[in-house]
């Protein structure tokens, strides 16, 4: 799973699912969804923001915040440095103010290119601040998750981020505000067991792996092979844990529709329908 390649700059890319060669340009045109089989390649957080938020609307929060090796964990300083270089980002989540279909939201987008989206103190802090900002300014929150879970290299302090972010989500929720989560491949561990599963509305991209314990850990524990599609978005939909599976190309419109229905502007004072419909 960690070995899944990001799309190189080459002209042709082989789809890992249908094995067909796809023109890079076509793939990019199609938001990195395979035009032949519909496989959703992982995409970087910045690209996610570009295809989700209204053009030019994104105002980033806490862009400079970076992690330190607080518990002096072996090799973590080097790993952090590499993650910054490889992803071009300072942390595993980007947060900020944006609008989607004209509706203002606080938007958080996790980044699989930064230590597989693992949650450290800064990840938790940025998400917590984003929720606190949204609570104060009475805004909905949209979070795109992708994560291998809590960041082992920060020890217990990474685990505490699960409680911290959950507290901020709860305060936001108690103010009657909307929180939409969009689960993307893969969302696992401590992120699944905290803010990913705390949305009022939980959407997912097709075929995304969504799990508390990853498939390998389970196979090791129970010593048997798992059924195909176990822990896929479609499996979770069937089990009742997510609201809808939405293809990438429809995500922006779906979010806009949901935001509009929560905006309180569907009916005007005279009872006439809003013109935006």
């Amino acid at each position, binding site marked *: 799973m960690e070995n899944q390649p990001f799309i190189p700059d080459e002209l042709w890319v082989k789809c890992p699912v249908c094995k067909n060669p796809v023109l890079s340009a076509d793939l990019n045109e199609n938001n990195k969804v395979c035009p032949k089989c519909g496989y959703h390649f992982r995409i970087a957080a910045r690209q996610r923001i570009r295809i989700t938020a209204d053009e030019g609307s994104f105002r980033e929060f806490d862009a400079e915040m970076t992690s330190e090796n607080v*518990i002096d*964990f*072996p*090799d973590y300083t080097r790993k952090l440095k590499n993650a910054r270089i490889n992803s071009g980002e300072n942390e595993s989540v980007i947060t900020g103010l944006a609008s989607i279909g004209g509706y203002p939201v606080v938007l958080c987008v996790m980044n699989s290119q930064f230590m597989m989206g693992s949650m450290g*103190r800064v990840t*938790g802090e940025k998400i*917590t601040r984003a929720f606190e900002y949204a609570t104060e300014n009475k805004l909905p929150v949209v979070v795109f998750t992708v994560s291998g879970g*809590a960041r*082992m290299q*920060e*020890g*217990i*302090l*990474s*685990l*505490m*981020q*699960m*409680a*911290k972010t*959950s*507290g*901020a*989500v*709860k*305060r936001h*929720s*108690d103010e009657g505000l909307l929180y939409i989560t969009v689960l993307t491949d893969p969302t696992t*561990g*401590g992120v*699944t*067991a*905290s*803010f*990913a*599963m*705390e949305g009022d509305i939980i959407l997912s991209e097709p075929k995304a792996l*969504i*799990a*508390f*314990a990853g498939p390998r*850990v*389970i196979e090791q*524990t*129970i010593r048997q092979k*798992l059924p195909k599609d*176990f*822990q896929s978005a479609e499996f979770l939909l069937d*089990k009742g*844990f997510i609201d809808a599976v939405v293809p990438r190309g429809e995500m922006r419109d779906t979010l806009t529709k949901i935001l509009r229905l929560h905006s309180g502007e569907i009916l005007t004072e005279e009872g006439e329908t809003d013109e935006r419909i």
Partner: protein
Amino acid sequence: MSAFDSVTAARANDRPTAVDYITRIFGNSFIEFHGDRRFADDKAVIGGIAELCGKAVTVIGLEKGRNLNERMERNFGSAHPEGYRKALRLMKQAEKFHRPVICFVDTSGAYCGIGAEERGQGQAIAENLMEMMTLKTPILSIFIGEGGSGGALALAVADEVWMLENAIYSVISPEGCASILWKDSSKTAEASECLKLTSKDLFKLGVIERIIREPKNVDSIMFDSLKTLIAQTFDKLGGLDTDTLLEKRYNRFRKY
């Protein structure tokens, strides 16, 4: 004593489990309640109500079992989603009847299996974290053995968290950490050091409020003094108005 000595002690078969604590502290006053009202009764979680120094309390524990048969029945203290949902049900009941909640934590982690995933292990833990943060009654969590990751935290979003001297609390098992870090799950001792999982480490990191000294042979003096400490703490927390209690709880976790 090394970090790995603590890991060994925390997992020792003769270590008192949640049932021992409940029996020694609450005696005959404990009444066990079962089930999550949704799916099943998870025996890895024991819960109910009891009397503590003249007052009613809700008691919840992650129970590993004290012999092989019990361990099988208790799934070695690894709860399924229904266990966390039972715990939350009892906590909500505690809120309704204005009694404080005490949790005894001892688990290598939430269970990793097909049923656990199918029934939403992640969702169950997440819900506990969220709901415990604003539960309008005092919560105290005591780590008596192993505190394995999210499965332990799901009973530890509390006003105070204490640890027995040789208990451990970690984001990942030392074995898991070693196999990721060095592709060698036998390097448990080194990983135990790296993770900062002992009571001393966690006290230094500000993750726990108190370390409970363990005598060589656990005796009634330890349980008696623990009982007094718990009662005093509930008196102290019970004296706060609800808003203050919840503000302090939020800030307790906000600071990390």
